[in-house]
Structures are given as structure tokens and as C-alpha cells.
């Protein structure tokens, strides 16, 4: 072979033809590939299965109806709004379905149809699309939707909404544990709180179901374990302290942990990657702040439960937390070059 044979026109006749389509791309050439955005969303849906089972057991058809309304509305909203922006529809990534499901699980069983419908449209439209779509939103979309309908329809969403005397299920005729505590000073037993045989939003009643699904999410690393861990520690610490300072009859820190939407929020909502901090340190701060705010709102405000507002407030703080929690690289910060 001489130099001439290295010219490209002879390449085709070479014994090893470059018949395979060789293409180039930047390194790395291998891709972990196990976890895609879509797969993360599927994980969340899988993790919601225990919650769904608990909810079906407790609220029967109300669950199915509410989930159907919210998920379908979320998908329709996603299609409509992405089309308005002239983008490709992004239904395939599953984020709209997840938003719809989380919203549905955070609503009262008997909330009328338009609550879920409008909530889903606001969640997708105002919660996500106006910020630039998936990955750009500041706030958890489902919680934006829920906050909107809570303020828009206080009767259908407030404490009174959970007590539905006309409902066909026994559970629905009692006040939620936190409302009962706040308004009547009545404490609910730990076992019903843990198993979820109490009234409340569709997904929040069973602490057990939230724990099972949440641990699955953390094990899959779809959710960062730091956030729920920090949140649980914060709530336990504050509730324990308050319990020591001024005990409430029959209400312990375990009640605070398993009552209300706390576990549901800590595992499924606060861990939303888009609206939570990036670094482990930031996640600890975020989780602890979330837990502290939940306790603050529960004890000091007019609302019996504070998960939604706690999530939204902490979401707003995320850019700040990200700034505080910039990690120092191994070997220390980049030395500042002295300008010549």
C-alpha cells in the first residue's frame, strides 16, 4: 500500500468496506439509559399504586371518578396549551398524567367535577406551560392547580368539603382528623391514621400506603430520599418539642407524622425534581423547611393542614437554596487567576 491507496476513493474497494454507517458524536458514547424522564414518570405512577389501593378501599368509586377527571383534563390541557405555543405535544413524557394523578389524590373525594377539571387546566397552564413547559416551572404544577381551586371554590375544597353528610360512605360523614383536632379538639387514633380509615383527600389518608410507595420511589432514586427524610425529621422534632411544651390530649408526634397529607406530600409532592433543589445539601434544607412549614401552618394558622402551602412556599425558595447549596468541588474552589 502506498500513499495513493489511502485516498478516499479507494476506501470503497478496500476489503473492509465502510459499509456500516459510521457516525460521530461527542463523548461519552455509552449511555446509562436505564432511567429516562419517561421512566421517572412511570415510576411515580407505579409508586402511586398503593395509594390508589388504599383510596379505592376507602372512597370506592369517588376515587375512580376524580382520577379520571383530573388525568383526562390534564392531558387535554397539555395538548391544547402545547399546541397554542406551537410546540410538539409532550404527552409522551408522562408528566401531565402524573400532575393529573397527584392533583386528583390531593382533592376531597366528593369535590365536584369542575374542581378537578379547572384545577388540572390551571395546573398545566399556569403551573407549567407559562413557565416554558416541563422542567422550567418554579412551582409544583399540581399544587398550583390545587391552590387555585382551594381559593376559587372554598366551599368545595375547604374543611367543610370533606364532610359530606349525603355521601354513601361512612368515612365521608366524619371530619378529617386534622379538622377534628383543630376545631373540636378531638384526637384520632393512631391505627386509623396509619391505615387510612379516616376522612381526607383521596391520597392522603393512609400513611402506610404513602410509606410503601414513597420508599419504592426513593429506592428507585426517582425521588431523592433526602427530602422526605429531612421533612420527617423536622416534623418529628417540632411536634415532639411542642408535645413536651404543651401536650395535646392523645395527639403525639406520630399523629402529626401520619395524619393529614404530610407523608403524601413529603414523598410524592415535595420530591418533584423540577421544583426541588439540585444538590443533596439543598435537598436537606428544602425538606426541613417543608416539614417546619407544615407544622407552622397546622399549629399557627386558620388552616388545619399546611402541606400544599408549605410545598409552594419552599418551591419559591428553591433558587435561593440552590445558591446557598452550591457544593465546593473536590480539591476546593477554582483558584482565581491573577490578571497579568
Amino acid at each position, binding site marked *: 500500500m502506498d500513499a495513493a491507496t489511502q485516498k478516499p476513493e479507494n476506501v470503497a474497494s478496500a476489503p473492509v468496506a465502510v459499509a456500516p454507517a459510521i457516525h460521530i458524536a461527542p463523548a461519552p458514547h455509552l449511555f446509562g439509559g436505564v432511567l429516562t424522564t419517561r421512566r421517572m414518570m412511570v415510576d411515580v405512577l407505579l409508586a402511586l399504586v398503593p395509594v390508589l389501593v388504599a383510596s379505592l378501599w376507602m372512597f370506592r368509586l369517588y376515587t375512580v371518578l376524580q382520577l379520571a377527571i383530573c388525568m383526562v383534563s390534564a392531558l387535554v390541557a397539555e395538548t391544547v396549551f402545547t399546541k397554542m405555543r406551537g410546540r410538539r405535544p409532550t404527552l409522551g413524557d408522562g408528566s401531565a398524567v402524573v400532575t393529573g394523578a397527584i392533583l386528583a389524590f390531593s382533592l376531597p373525594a366528593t369535590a365536584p367535577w369542575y374542581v378537578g377539571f379547572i384545577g388540572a387546566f390551571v395546573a398545566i397552564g399556569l403551573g407549567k406551560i407559562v413557565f416554558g413547559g416541563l422542567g422550567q416551572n418554579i412551582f409544583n404544577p399540581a399544587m398550583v392547580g390545587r391552590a387555585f381551586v382551594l381559593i376559587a*371554590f*372554598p*366551599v368545595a375544597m*375547604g*374543611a*367543610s*368539603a370533606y*364532610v359530606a353528610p349525603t355521601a354513601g360512605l361512612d368515612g365521608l360523614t366524619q371530619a378529617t382528623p386534622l379538622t377534628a383536632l383543630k*376545631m*373540636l379538639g378531638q384526637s384520632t387514633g393512631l391505627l386509623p391514621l396509619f391505615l387510612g380509615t379516616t376522612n381526607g383527600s383521596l391520597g392522603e389518608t393512609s400513611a402506610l400506603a404513602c410509606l410503601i410507595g414513597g420508599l419504592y420511589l426513593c429506592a428507585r432514586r426517582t425521588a431523592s430520599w433526602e427530602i422526605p427524610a429531612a421533612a420527617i425529621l423536622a416534623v418529628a422534632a417540632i411536634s415532639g418539642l411542642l408535645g413536651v411544651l404543651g401536650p395535646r390530649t392523645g395527639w403525639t408526634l406520630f399523629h402529626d407524622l401520619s395524619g393529614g397529607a404530610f407523608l403524601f406530600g413529603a414523598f410524592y409532592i415535595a420530591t418533584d425534581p423540577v421544583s426541588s433543589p439540585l444538590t443533596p445539601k439543598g435537598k436537606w434544607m428544602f425538606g426541613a423547611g417543608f416539614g417546619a412549614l407544615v407544622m407552622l401552618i397546622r399549629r399557627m394558622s*386558620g388552616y388545619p393542614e399546611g402541606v400544599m402551602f408549605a410545598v409552594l412556599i419552599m418551591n419559591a425558595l428553591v433558587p435561593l437554596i440552590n445558591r446557598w447549596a452550591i457544593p465546593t468541588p473536590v480539591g476546593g474552589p477554582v483558584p482565581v487567576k491573577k490578571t497579568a
Partner: protein
Amino acid sequence: MKNSYIGQAWLVVVLSLCFGAALAAVQTTLQPRIEQNKLADTIGQIPKLVPGAAGGELQRVGDQVAYRAMDASGQQVGWVLAAAGQGFADRIELLIGMDAAAARITGLYVLDQKETPGLGNKIVDDAFCAKFQGRATEPVLVVTKHAPQADREIEGITGATISSESVVGIVNAAVAKFREAPKP
């Protein structure tokens, strides 16, 4: 002259004088009407709060503002008491109608409130205010979560326990104080 303060500011001075005069004129012309509007806002409620009353006049009782409710012949038929206190969101201002002996409530009117719309602001509804009609002023009223079984029980607004309790509390406090006070 050109650089003196007056030279610079004469326009401001002249305009101030003109505007001042104009405002004085407007104020003098309209003030009685505005005062009347304000009074009418309260007095106009009196016939609704005290049965048989046709009008009323301001009567301070201690540091409380009250109105004597009169029938057409000028006979006193009751009292209207202005009361205020903290609600769930902000101050609630009430007018409480009572009979001449201040023994029975004859009506309730919410002058001003900023309670949660859809929940707490239901205290302005007739449905809620009417619950106070005919209640004795002693013993004090209490809020319940069910249909009232005793004269002193007022059924609260679902989902607005604090607003309901605030109104009842304001009524109780104001009425108790009014009953104690010597009346002219």
C-alpha cells in the same frame, strides 16, 4: 426678581391658592350631603333591626356608640348598638338591634367585614344574621355545629367556625357592656 424664590415659584403659589379655594368650595357644598350619607347608612338600617322603628338618633352610652330607635310617634322602641371586634381576617363591624330593655336581640347587621369570601363572608347573609333574631341577651350566646337545641345556641357557618365565633363573641361582649352601662 428673576432668580428669587418668589420669581421661581409664583405659579405654584397662585395655583395653590386657586386650588385651595376650589376645594374649599367643593367641601362646603358637599360636606352636609356626605355626612347625611354616612348617617343614613346606619339610621337606614334601624327600621330593619328594630321592629316598629321608623328612625333613630345618635346616643352615646359610655364609650359605646348607640342609636335610639324611635317609632313614627317618636316613642322609643329599642336600641341599635354599634360594635366591632377581631374576626378571622380583619375587624368586623356590626350593628345590633335590641328591644328597649336590651333584653332581647331583634336584629343584626354587618356593616363591614373582610372575611374569606365564600366562607367567612357568609356572616353578612340574612340567613346567618336572622339566627340572632329574638334571642335573649342572657345567658350569653354560644356557637354550635348542629341545629340549635337551646335558645342560646347559634348554629355556626360550616367551614367558617372562627368567623361565626367572632361575630357571636363581638355581640356577647358589646351587649353585656351595654347592659351594664347607665343609660341617659
